[in-house]
C-alpha cells in the first residue's frame, strides 16, 4: 500500500529535489543568519520583528522602494557575475573592486573628454554605449593582467588581485587629484568633471532613479548563463575550472582560458563601475564604491557561483542595503546589523557543514570548487 501511494509523489519529489536541491543550504544559511540577527537586534535593545518589517517596507513597500532596491541590485549583479565567472574557471577574483574603479574612471574619461577631444557633440546612442563599453574594456584589461600573470608565471590570482586592487585604487586617486580632476574653481575634492549629457544612461521611468542598467544586468546574466552552458568557450572555462589537467589532456589551451576567464570577469566588474557612474553619479569621485567588489564575493558564494544564483543573491543583498535606512528610521538600531547578517550568511554558506549539521541535512557534500591550490 505504501508503495503504490508513494510512487507518484516520489517522482515529483525527485524533480523538485533536483531543481531546488542546490539551493537548500544557501536558503537555510540566510534563514539562520536572520534568526541570529534577530537575537542580535534584541540584544541591542531593538525589536527584531519591526526591524525586519521596516527592512521589507523600505525595500519593497512602494513602487519607488522597489525601484531603489533594483537600483542597488544593479552593481551587485554585475560584480556578482564577475566573481562567479572567475569561480567557474577555478579562479578567485578578489580584484573586482579595483576593476570596477578603473572601469568607472575610464568610462568617466570617455564621458566628459571625448566630445571635447573630437570637437563634436556625440549622439547618446553612440556616446552611452561607448562610455559603458570603455569601462568594460578597462576592467577587462585590468582583470586579464592577473590572469596572464597566473598563466605565465603561476602567480596565484588571490594574491595578485588583492595587490592590484591597491595599485588600481591609488592610480585612480592620483588621476582624480591630477590629470582628471574637475578644474572648476569651487572644487576642492578628488573628482572628475561631470560627464556630458549624451553619456548619461537615462532612468527607465521619469520620477524614479532606476535606470536601464538594471535590464542590462538581466540581459548580461542571461548571456553569461548561455555562454557558460552552451558555448565552447564556456565549456572550456568550466572544464579548466573543474580539472585543468584533464582540460590540458583534452587539448584545451589552459593558459589562454585562464586569461580569458579573468578578462571577462574583470570586464563585468568594469561594466558595474561604468554603469553606476554613467547612470547615477555622472562623474567619478573618490569613495563612490562602498565595497561592491567585496560584497560581490559573498553574493557569488551565496549564488553558488552560478549566474542564475547570483540574481536572487544580489537582490537579497540589495533589499537589505536599500531597506536599511527605513529599518533604522523605524527602530533606531544601528545599521551595522545588516553587515553582521550579511557576514553570517557568508559564514554559513562557506562553512556549509554547520548548516547541514544544524538542520540534519543528508546528501553528499557537493561543494563549489572555488579556487585551487598553489600548483
Amino acid at each position, binding site marked *: 500500500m505504501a508503495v503504490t501511494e508513494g510512487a507518484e509523489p516520489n517522482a515529483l519529489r525527485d524533480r523538485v529535489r533536483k531543481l531546488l536541491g542546490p539551493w537548500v543550504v544557501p536558503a537555510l544559511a540566510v534563514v539562520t543568519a536572520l534568526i541570529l540577527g534577530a*537575537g542580535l537586534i534584541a540584544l541591542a535593545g531593538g*525589536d*527584531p520583528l519591526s526591524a525586519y518589517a521596516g527592512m521589507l517596507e523600505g525595500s519593497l513597500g512602494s513602487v519607488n522602494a522597489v525601484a531603489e532596491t533594483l537600483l542597488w541590485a544593479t552593481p551587485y549583479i554585475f560584480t556578482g557575475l564577475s566573481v562567479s565567472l572567475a569561480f567557474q574557471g577555478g579562479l578567485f577574483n578578489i580584484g573586482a573592486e579595483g576593476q570596477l574603479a578603473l572601469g568607472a574612471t575610464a568610462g568617466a574619461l570617455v564621458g566628459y573628454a571625448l566630445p571635447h577631444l573630437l570637437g563634436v557633440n556625440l549622439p547618446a546612442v553612440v556616446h552611452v554605449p561607448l562610455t559603458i563599453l570603455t569601462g568594460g574594456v578597462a576592467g577587462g584589461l585590468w582583470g586579464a593582467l592577473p590572469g596572464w600573470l597566473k598563466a605565465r608565471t603561476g602567480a596565484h590570482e588571490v594574491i595578485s588581485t588583492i595587490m592590484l586592487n591597491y595599485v588600481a585604487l591609488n592610480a585612480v586617486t592620483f588621476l582624480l587629484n591630477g590629470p582628471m580632476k574637475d578644474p572648476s574653481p569651487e572644487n576642492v575634492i578628488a573628482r572628475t568633471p561631470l560627464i556630458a549629457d549624451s553619456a548619461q544612461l537615462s532612468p527607465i521611468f521619469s520620477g524614479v532613479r532606476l535606470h536601464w542598467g538594471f535590464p542590462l544586468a538581466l540581459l548580461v546574466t542571461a548571456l553569461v548563463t548561455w555562454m557558460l552552458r552552451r558555448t565552447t568557450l564556456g565549456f572550456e572555462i568550466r572544464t579548466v575550472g573543474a580539472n585543468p589537467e584533464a582540460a590540458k589532456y583534452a587539448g584545451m589551451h589552459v593558459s589562454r582560458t585562464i586569461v580569458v576567464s579573468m578578462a571577462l570577469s574583470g570586464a563585468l566588474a568594469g561594466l558595474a563601475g561604468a554603469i553606476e557612474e554613467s547612470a547615477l553619479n555622472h562623474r567619478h569621485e573618490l569613495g563612490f564604491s562602498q565595497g561592491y567588489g567585496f560584497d560581490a564575493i559573498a553574493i557569488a558564494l551565496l549564488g553558488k557561483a552560478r549566474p542564475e544564483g547570483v540574481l536572487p543573491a544580489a537582490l537579497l543583498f540589495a533589499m537589505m542595503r536599500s531597506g536599511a535606512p527605513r529599518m533604522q528610521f523605524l527602530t533606531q538600531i544601528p545599521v551595522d546589523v545588516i553587515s553582521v547578517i550579511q557576514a553570517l550568511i557568508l559564514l554559513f554558506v562557506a562553512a556549509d557543514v554547520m548548516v547541514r549539521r*544544524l538542520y540534519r541535512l543528508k546528501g553528499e557534500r557537493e561543494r563549489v570548487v572555488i579556487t585551487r591550490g598553489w600548483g
Partner: protein
Amino acid sequence: MPDNRRLSGPKAGVLALFSLALATSASACSKSNKPDCSSPEVFCVGVVTDVGKVDDKSFNQSTWEGVQRAQKELGANGKYIETTDPKDYGKNIAAFADEKYDVVVTIGFALGEATREGAAKYPDTHFIGVDQFQPPGTEKKNLATLVFPEDYAGFQVGALAALVSKSGKIGAVLATDAVPPVWRYGEGFKAGARYAKPDIDLNVVYHNDVGIEKTFSDPEWGKTTAISMIDKGTDIIFGGGGKTGNGALIGAAAKGVYAIGVDTDQYNTVPEAQKFMLTSAMKLLDEGVFDLLKQGKDGKWSSGNVLGKAGHAPYHDLDGKVPEAARAKVEEIQKALQSGALKTNVPPTKS
C-alpha cells in the same frame, strides 16, 4: 528508524533558537511608537548623517547632541538615519520629509547638494545643512546652512597658546591653505596669538607641497614637522587638517609638549595625545543646531547662510595647568568675537 531521532539534539537547537528570537521580539514589541509629525503640536526633527556613525565623536555626534538637547528642552521627537552609501543621501532625506517631519538636519559638506535638492523638492519642510554653504543669490527659503567662523576658533586658541607658552615659541601644523576652512583656522591662530602677545614667536606651516588628497592624510609629515618645531624650542603645537593634523598632535604628545586640535574636542578622537591635549578649536555644532531648532520651534525659521558659534574645548586633564589670567582672557576674547566688538581681520579665503 532515523525518523524517530528527528527531535533530538540539533533540531532542538534550532527550535530553541527560534523561540529565543520570538521571545525577545515579543518582549520588545511594546516599545514601538510613531509620532504623528504632520500634527502642528508635534515637533519632529530628522537627522541624516554623512557616511559614518552617529557616535563618531566628530560632526555627526556633535550635531546629534544638539538634537538630543532639543528633545530634552523643546520636547522634540528626534530620529537619525546613518548613511552607508552616498547614493542614499536623497533617499534618506526623503525618508523624513515624506513622513512630514518639521525639519531635516543634514551633516557635512558632502550632503550639500542633496540637501539643496531636498529643499527644492519639499518646500514645506525646513532644512538645516550643518557645515554647508549656499552661494549668495541661490539661497533657498526653507534651508538654513550653518557655517562656522573657523578664524574665531583659531583666534581663541592662538591667544591661549601665546599666553600659556613658556618658551614664547608656538607653532601650527596644518593641511593646505587652499582649502578655506584650514586657511581660516591658521590665520585666525596667527592673529589671536599676536593679539594676546605681540612679541610671540610664531611658526605656521601648511602642507602645500602635495596634492589635495595627500595633504589631509599625511600623519607622518604632521608628526615629523611638529617634532622638528619642538626641537627648535616650540612648546605648543596647533594641529589641523584630518590625519595630518592628528599626526602633529601625536608628535607633540610624543615629545611631551601641549597640543591643540581642531573641529571637535580631539581629546576624545586622538587618544594617543590625550594627556597633552590643551584644548581644541571647535565649531560648536550642537549649539548652532539647537539654536536654529529653538527658533524654528517658536515659528522663526532662519534661512540662508547662518553664522554658527566657534569656541574651544574644555582643558580636561590640563585644567590645573592653565593660568587664571589666560583662562579669563580667552573667555573675554570669545565673547568679544561673538558680539562683533573684536575682529580677527582674516579674509575668508587666501589671496
